[in-house]
């Protein structure tokens, strides 16, 4: 599942992430696409603080960060 957070400023991307993580099954991944410079560090910190796994960061075609998170609980 991809959640498009383009144009959403800190802390909205991690709020979106928290709201949508429940829509994927435990063990599956969700990708947040965000152009806010605070999103890459904050998605990692969110994973650490809430017990999910940060899997990878890639760059989308338009330069936005694509942040892959695995639901662990």
């Amino acid at each position, binding site marked *: 599942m991809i959640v498009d957070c383009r144009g959403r400023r*800190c*802390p*909205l991307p*991690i709020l979106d992430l928290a709201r949508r993580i429940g829509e994927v099954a435990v063990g599956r991944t969700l990708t947040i696409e965000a152009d806010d*410079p605070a999103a890459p560090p904050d998605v*990692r910190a969110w994973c650490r603080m809430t017990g999910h796994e940060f899997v990878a960061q890639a760059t989308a075609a338009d330069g936005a960060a694509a942040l892959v998170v695995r639901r662990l609980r």
Partner: protein
Amino acid sequence: MGAFLDAAAGTPLHPAAREALLAALAEGWGDPGRLYGAGRRAALLLDAAREVIAGGIGARPDEVSFCANGTQALHAAVLGAIAGGRPSREVVHSAVEHSAVLHAIEHGARAGHPIAVDRLGRVDAAAFVAAANAPQVTVAALQAANHEVGTAQPAASVAARIPVPLVVDATQTVGHADLPDGWSVLAADARSWGGPALGVVAVRTGTRWRSPFPADDREGGRIPGLPDVPAAVAAAAGLRAVLAERREVAARHRAMVAHIRERVAATVPDCEVLGDPDERLPHIVTFSCLYVDGEALLLDLDRRGFAVSSGSSCTSSTLEPSHVLVAMGALTSGNVRISLSRDTSEAEVDEFLTVLPGAVAGVREQLRP
């Protein structure tokens, strides 16, 4: 109601500094470079101020120069060390240096090599030493302690193991904690100890440091132009007073910061307290909260009478998150830095701790549609 909890950004003048400033405005207005009476009086005041400040930072008076403020002191310290070194001009520095240090490196060095920090914000000393021993590196820069999260850096241990001058940013440390041994160039900011705006650059005798400015014979040839004599006098009086009361004030600050760390973690859900709990500046404490707009929280606390600062991107003019928090892997949103002054009382801290959970909850509530 409320409290000023952003002392790291500057406080009202220490009473001793204020008194000295008023006297020096009357007595020290002359040009200390002139030979007539008013000039000689200003020169005597300036010499005395230099001696006190040098003593306070563990330097000799002839190693100390004054400039306008802490940012300029950091710029001069770094740029002069680069200018005095070999032409390869590569600088090793921690990833969490003050932006003034990073900007000076960007401006004057051929390349900068940031060294990673751990979750607490402390630089990897072994990696720092290894990088600073590379042949093309001519300068190393490491803060005494971090200005955003308070974590002390291993500057003394690093200094002993590198072959290049170590520039130490002590702009948040002087007046609050012991300075590390082994620095070659040190920058300080009189506002950190209750003085007026005044930068201090100290260059150890024998260090390869060359003024990055056009030639001028003031301030040992290191900083061009007339120094602000009344500001130097006030800064010296403030430093002397602050150092005399430092043990007692630092112990009080340590206890308050430990209390804040414990209460914030216990009463604010989804929040992490940052920085080393023990090896740290006594007066700074920082935390970040999930699902909180840092700017909204700062403004809400301001309405309740509390002044704090934030490293969240929404509070910066560039909309970039704090490079310190990013380097630590810390949450950058909902970030609050509290810094205590000598006047901060336990009652003010308790009032802040009472108000904070509701302020965070209220700001979180605004984000829900």
